[in-house]
């Protein structure tokens, strides 16, 4: 049951874990998306309310460790008021910095949060407005790819061990 590395969190992470901002399903969200998988032990759901290509509200849900909850919460704070293009440009390093730092083995929490956000933005353009702005890359971004890889990896492990997910 022992872990590999001690997980020291910043005061900011502990604060957001205790009092997460923008928590909960948004009933009137313009778009929502999920990243991660229960089998991996982390899932982030991002809800965005979008008006005139600007995120006017955002909320999250998180199944995961304290850092995961904090990363999901802070990214919803970061995107509020931003245009979709501005939100797209947020990197996982930005999220990490905003949290005051993360233990290196927890970087994937920021990556997952950014992956979830980018998925939501891509979904918005693909499924809601059905157009593709030129700043939006056709190929998956690094964070979207990593979220996908994590989701697929666990399925491969499941198959390997003959477990039905």
């Amino acid at each position, binding site marked *: 049951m022992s872990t590999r590395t001690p997980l020291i969190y910043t005061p900011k992470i502990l604060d957001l874990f205790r009092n997460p901002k923008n928590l909960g399903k948004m009933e009137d969200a313009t778009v929502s998306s999920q990243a991660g998988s*229960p*089998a991996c*032990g982390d899932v982030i759901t991002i809800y965005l309310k979008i008006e005139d290509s600007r995120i006017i509200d955002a909320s999250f849900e*998180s199944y995961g460790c304290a850092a995961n909850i904090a990363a999901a919460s802070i990214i919803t704070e970061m995107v509020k008021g931003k245009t979709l293009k501005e939100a797209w440009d947020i990197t996982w390093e930005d999220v990490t910095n905003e949290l005051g730092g993360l*233990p290196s083995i*927890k970087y994937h929490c920021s990556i997952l949060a950014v992956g979830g956000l980018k998925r939501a933005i891509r979904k918005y353009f693909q499924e809601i407005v059905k157009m593709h702005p030129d700043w939006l890359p056709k190929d998956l971004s690094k964070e979207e790819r990593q979220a996908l890889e994590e989701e697929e990896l666990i399925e491969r492990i499941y198959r390997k061990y003959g*477990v039905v997910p």
Partner: protein
Amino acid sequence: MVKVSEFLKQHGKPSREVYLDHENSGWVPPEVVEAMLPYFNQRGYGHPSITNLPGWEAYEVVESTLEKVNKTINARGGELVITHNGTEANNLAIIGTALGSGRERRKIITSAIEHVSILFPARSLEEYGYRVVTIPVDKEGFVDPDMLSMLIDYETLMVSIQMVNHEIGTIQNIKTLVETVKDKDDRIIFHTDAVDAYGRIKIDVEELGVDLMTLSSHKIHGPRGVGVLYVREGVRLKPIMHGALSTQKMWPGVENIPAIAGFNKAIDLTFTNFDDNVKKMKMLRDMLMDGILNNVPEVLLNGPRGDKRAPDNVNISFLHVEGESITVELSLRGVYVSSGSACTSRVLEPSHVILAIGRRYEEAHGSILFKVSRYHNKEDIEYVLSQVPPAIERLRIISPLARESREAVKKVVEV
């Protein structure tokens, strides 16, 4: 990264604290610390093999402690090797047996729920031509003697099966397993990791017939720094560490005398009123277990119930929440536990023990291990029971999986 001290300030010291992480380590009662103190600088601070007074005083500690250990496991004859913890004793048992063998037998059999200090040393031998066979366990963690019997062949060097599982508390029937092995071939070495059995169930190495057995001081409220490997007379080991031998031949380096003196005292405390201590642990265990199972929805008990479960072990999977966040949430509430979640280790692999009893990954991620001790009282458990339900509830409010489950239930009810 941030300094721990800053984090600790932010965390704060809860007004009430109950430590239940005795699996990973724990605190040492004042009487044990008291027993250690003279050996830092009053007496016995020398090397137990050196012919001067502080050396002889040190040897007295070693001698009397080993005598005491022998008594508590009913060992008549055989050798006790002092290491620094159970991990080292397990490494010596596995690798030392391989090195000490003639190398004709190259199959090592262990169970799927052994501690990693058995599994990893065994796997490390694969590079040198050994084959490690891992017996699966049933839903409660038990090894099937018939399956064990089937796996034994002329190639089998050793079998290592723990006495009590550290995570789910399964008490194996070691006597039957030893007989199964020895009936087929009595030259096969039987090792049992009794780290989580010592002080919790009666152990009699003569009756059980084991060849090697591991103990660890900090698992019975002794200090860290002492492990013991019991080695039956005639069992051939080779040391895996090399240096200046001391009072014993299998682990080099000067003995940690204050720690051994503390272990000695911890043995006294553990085995005086042994039955009462065990009864108390069982009472607290059941109080905690039932309290959670009855008051928190969507939970699963991991491991067996009743007499085949270790008296101190409660292991519960909380569905739709992840274990690391539970440990943090409970820590803020002064309840200290650990989890079988993989989330902290970034290996994508949660507890192999929880998976081995057929739990799904997400069930393992939500598993929490509580270990009660004879030093707890009912009020401690009441406090824990007052904190666990709201802690889980709060995390479930955050979790999309918990919401989806609620919505699914609601739908079913509405239909």
